[in-house]
């Protein structure tokens, strides 16, 4: 597949080709990077480690209307599912996460809401030269320059970007901008190797998950769960900021005599997540919930889809208010095996 070169002077023009056409890229909001629409004339800067909130909501909105209806009336109205979209500057871990989550939404039946949105999205990734403090993608099957889930990968070579199309969608993007691109030479490809290799070496945190998926069931009643969950405050930070967490709740919102059925993110760390109508809760304490979170990512998902549902982006570690550190938990799990 062809690799092209975009010199940084041309970056604004490159962006210009897509800006205003539902192009999203990381922008600084307050002190945090977030994906937000790029208007014409805007040029996103690509110096950042990663956005605080993953772009998973592009295909999996935090709240989405499934249909509308009126009380005492049987008809339902279906919503519009949105338009084509380009996510520019998504990190390889987050792109990988999308393909991991997609497995779930394709599993027992094809989820129209997710898949239709997903198909409308073109993912232009940006390889990591400076991995973040808590990144451990390489421990869980990813890499700073992984192309999984991407349509196009950009690698920052300093004064230019190397652009590698991964899918036809990616090719289309390159085609659209071919007047700005030149073919990448061998030394460009060499420095790409060097840069990504160095990036890999800069990853400071590691997880050795060998044996964990198989081992976890045996640790079901291990005291470690109580230990690692004791300080959990049961908030949704870890799961809401996780690019692979995909749990949702379905609720009817009524106002006056109008209503909509909608689905919205839910978190297995919330008490009411697993609360039954009867009042019984199979995961009554933070211990069971924390255990579930780890098991879901490192056992159930592997079991079902043969992939760990954690891409090592480190967000849950960065932002946990009480320093519950998944790397540390996995270390203790390993220890207990």
């Amino acid at each position, binding site marked *: 597949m062809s690799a092209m070169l975009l010199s940084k002077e041309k970056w604004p023009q490159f962006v210009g080709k897509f800006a205003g056409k539902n192009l999203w890229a990381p922008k600084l909001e307050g*002190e945090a990077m977030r994906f937000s629409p790029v208007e014409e004339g805007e040029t996103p800067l690509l110096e950042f480690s990663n956005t605080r909130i993953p772009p998973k909501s592009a295909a999996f909105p935090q709240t989405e209307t499934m249909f509308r209806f009126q009380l005492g009336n049987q008809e339902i109205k279906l919503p519009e599912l949105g338009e084509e979209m380009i996510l520019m500057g998504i990190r390889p871990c987050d792109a990988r996460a999308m393909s991991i989550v997609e497995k779930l939404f394709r599993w027992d039946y094809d989820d129209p809401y997710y898949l239709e949105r997903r198909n409308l999205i073109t993912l232009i990734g940006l390889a990591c030269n400076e991995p973040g*403090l808590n990144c451990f993608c390489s421990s869980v099957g990813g890499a700073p320059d992984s192309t999984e889930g991407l349509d196009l990968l950009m690698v920052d070579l300093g004064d230019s970007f190397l652009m590698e199309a991964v899918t036809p969608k990616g090719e289309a993007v390159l085609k659209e901008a071919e007047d700005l691109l030149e073919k990448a030479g061998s030394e460009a490809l060499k420095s790409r190797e060097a840069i990504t290799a160095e990036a890999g070496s800069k990853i400071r945190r590691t997880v050795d998950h060998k044996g964990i998926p198989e081992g976890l069931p045996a640790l079901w009643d291990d005291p470690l769960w109580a230990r690692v969950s004791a300080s959990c405050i049961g908030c949704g930070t870890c799961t809401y900021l996780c690019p692979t967490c995909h749990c949702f709740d379905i609720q009817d919102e009524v106002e006056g005599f109008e209503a909509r059925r909608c689905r919205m993110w839910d978190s297995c760390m919330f008490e009411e997540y697993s609360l039954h109508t009867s009042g019984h809760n199979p995961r009554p304490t933070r211990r069971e919930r924390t255990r579930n979170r780890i098991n879901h990512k490192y056992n159930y998902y592997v079991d079902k889809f043969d992939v760990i549902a954690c891409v090592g982006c480190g967000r849950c570690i960065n932002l946990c208010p009480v320093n519950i550190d998944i790397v540390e938990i996995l270390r203790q799990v390993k220890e207990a095996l």
Partner: protein
Amino acid sequence: MDLEQLRKTAAEVVSREDVKYLIGWKKGTYGYRVAPVFVEDAAGAAELFFSPLCTANLTTYLTMAEKLPLPRGQEADKRKVALMVKGCDSRAVVQLLVEKGIHRDQVVVIGCPCPGMVDPALLAEKYKETEKPVDLKWDGDQFLLICDGEELAIPRDEVLAEKCRLCRYPNPVISDILLGDPVEKWEVAEDSGVAELDTLDINERWSYWQEQFSKCIRCYSCRNVCPLCYCQDCILDRLNPTWVNRAVNFSENTAFNISRAFHLAGRCIECGECERVCPANIPLGKLNRKMAQEVREKYGFEPGIDPDAEPFQASFKPDDPEDFIL
């Protein structure tokens, strides 16, 4: 404070058979991180420490432990919980006593006079956080940052947490055991955060908060970390009736945040935890402190000081302000 004394006292306390466990702070897994720790035996006390990084208010754990159904005949564990508190944290304990969230004989309060905590986010922003373990010490009007044996002096005001700049109670207002000597109160800065919003006109304020609340992802960390949000079943999770929809959008987020701030009016003890934990960096402290200010200035009431006080929201004075009434 002398760590040896802290650990020694803690070891004694957890060894008492009327004490279930002790909640304190320990070093986190890396960098500037600090984690709450539940010490159950004398040995565990060795992990405990107290430094300018212990910003977190641990009082919230007093009401967090789940009460699982007990098999018939089995007695509930009625032993006390020991808790380490700073000045601000201790006000939460008092307020919980006022609201019967806990009973006095259920807690052993270990008071830690507090010379002021750092704002971890601010620190990380100014002095890049590393994966290496770090030590931070008080040193007069500066903090000493120790990493790899290297020592760096940081001016106190540069990284002091906002709640500490505004702190009026550096010393615990309630405690069974006081570790070290009370610290001297420092001059309280005026609440510029709240004040500057006051100067905006109504529409500017609206758009300011519109922007802030739009960021909210409704992870409920602000509520869950709050020592005074301890309802079994929060009305903001209720479906019948639905006060606030679970949907995440500006309207519901605003409703959520207004409700939360209102429920804390006259109860919030300004420990700043909600703002610290917010992954979306919403300045929740401003809301709560504004209300605390109103309650102080208009109603002459301050929560979390007097365990025998009548709850603000469940009482009134015949001469409460009513200039707003037609």
